[in-house]
């Protein structure tokens, strides 16, 4: 008896389907339910539906001003994203033309992709250390500052410090993705532009960017979603402090779950993140693809 190929393919897919439904999708659904429940680890006998109570408590929380957290989230996401993108794009452009040792060079500059968020937070905490940090030492030696700065304990510097660590981490992602896209641009397009007298900057603007536009849209959107869901760096460097200066939605959620054990409110914040991401993705894609038509 010969089994039909379709049946075999279904059999190959089944384990992954079952595992992902059980370990990812079922808990997500339960998590969404918990967002509408009064659910605290210290009071698990007393779990009950509470409607929108969790959302109300999160938004009206005096100790963690919601508006400030939302603004911090926007600053964290967009400043990190823009810097990661611009530097990653610059790196990709630099790497496009082959040079001696390019292979080994890319291994070094792309390695930060493989460092964990938590390890990054520790490495950069040490560099930004208020007394013994490398950053303070360099700035003092160059006479840019006269006294050491508490980068992570001063509300003025904490956000920019965690963003620098995040940019360090994110450059390889854009470098890798945009380099691949750049290498797919047909060389004839550049030759045609050269005949028309276009300089290298005009070529970048008129040939390269339009051609790789779909990659730019999809990578920035995915990276944006990813940064929004990425509390590790802030958790390790400042835990959202000082005085909420670096508290973003995902660290707020993490603190609710791991410190206060308030799963209901933690899940409510998670749901807020998910819904805002979907809304944003929808708007971004409809704007981004329309731009593509125009070009």
């Amino acid at each position, binding site marked *: 008896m010969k089994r039909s*190929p379709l049946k075999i393919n279904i059999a*190959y897919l089944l384990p992954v389907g079952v595992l*992902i439904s059980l370990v990812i999708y079922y808990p*997500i659904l339960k*998590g969404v339910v918990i967002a509408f429940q009064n659910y605290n680890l210290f009071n698990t006998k007393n779990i009950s539906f509470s409607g929108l109570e969790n959302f109300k408590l999160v938004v009206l929380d005096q100790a963690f001003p919601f508006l400030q957290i939302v603004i911090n989230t926007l600053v964290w996401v967009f400043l990190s994203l823009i810097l990661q993108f611009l530097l990653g794009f610059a790196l990709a452009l630099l790497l496009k033309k082959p040079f001696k040792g390019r292979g080994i060079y890319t291994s070094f*500059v*792309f390695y930060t992709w493989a460092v964990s968020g938590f*390890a990054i937070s520790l490495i950069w905490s040490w560099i930004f250390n208020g007394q013994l940090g490398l950053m303070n030492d360099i700035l*003092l030696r160059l006479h840019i500052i006269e006294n050491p700065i508490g980068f992570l304990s001063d509300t003025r510097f904490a956000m920019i410090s965690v963003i620098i660590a995040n940019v360090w981490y994110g450059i390889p992602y854009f470098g890798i993705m945009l380099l691949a896209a750049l290498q797919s641009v047909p060389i004839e397009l550049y030759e045609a532009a050269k005949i028309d007298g276009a300089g290298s900057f005009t070529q970048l603007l008129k040939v390269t960017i339009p051609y790789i536009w779909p990659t730019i849209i999809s990578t920035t959107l*995915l990276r944006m979603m990813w940064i929004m869901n990425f509390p590790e760096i802030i958790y390790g460097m400042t835990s959202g402090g000082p005085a909420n200066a670096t508290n973003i939605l995902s660290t707020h959620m993490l603190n609710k779950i791991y410190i206060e054990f308030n799963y209901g409110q933690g899940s409510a914040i998670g749901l807020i993140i998910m819904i805002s991401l979907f809304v944003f993705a929808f708007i971004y894609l409809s704007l981004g693809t329309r731009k593509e038509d125009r070009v």
Partner: protein
Amino acid sequence: MRNVRSSISSIARFLALMLFLLFAIGPLVWIVITSLKSADEIYTFPITYLPKIISFSSYQKLFSFAKFGIYIKNSLIVTICGSFGAVFFSIFAGYALSRIKAHEASKRLLLILYFTQTVPSFILMVPLYTMVAKLRLTNNLFILGGIYMVTVLAFCTIMAKSFFDRIPQSIEEAAIVDGCTSTQALYRIVIPLVTPGIVAVFSFAFVNIWNELFIAVLFLSSPNKMTVPVALNSFISKAGISWDVMGAGLVMALLPTMFIFAIGQKFIVSGLTEGGVKG
């Protein structure tokens, strides 16, 4: 004139490349240097840029006092179980997804896989923990490895599919004409052709599982079960961080991913750009 301009631009390019390199590896080099200083030297001001005497005392403390060897072993168990499992399941699922491409169902399944990448993972952690706790399976490294496997499975499957997409179906059909069954064609002909893809999937799974902290914090309760990231997390106390032990611990935590990245970089890069989702 033209020569002058092109040499200026190549110097500028060289300088820019050097700045990127300095920014990328500077922090890593700094941690390695810190780990090779004695504790006294780490805590003196002004700081020294190179150790006066190269000292391995931080590493000695790490492995004797902090028992780091156990944590490395635990992390290896979890990571190897998780990444081999992910490779195994994602090869079959990726192959199947690639071969039913024409079906509408394939697109829908892909969307279901992509969706898992956009959800904040913390929303599923507590329900997952209560599920596993009910079965009394927490604090078990193999169960943790299994959970990790599933957390990377969606992306690994997407990545594997993109590699199978490049192998034309006609190759299998030719093998079947020659008398192979379709299963034999998969094992003997197709899988050997996607070895780079398998390396990419494995490297991706390995790096992500090796680095994971928060699921492990939740699922492991006894100190002798801690993985490397959990151990590093436990070095942070209210009194602050002992940077000598932490520096050495970080270097040990980075070494395996450096090794994997050195071997698999080329394949990881092509896997990322094909699958295209996760940072």
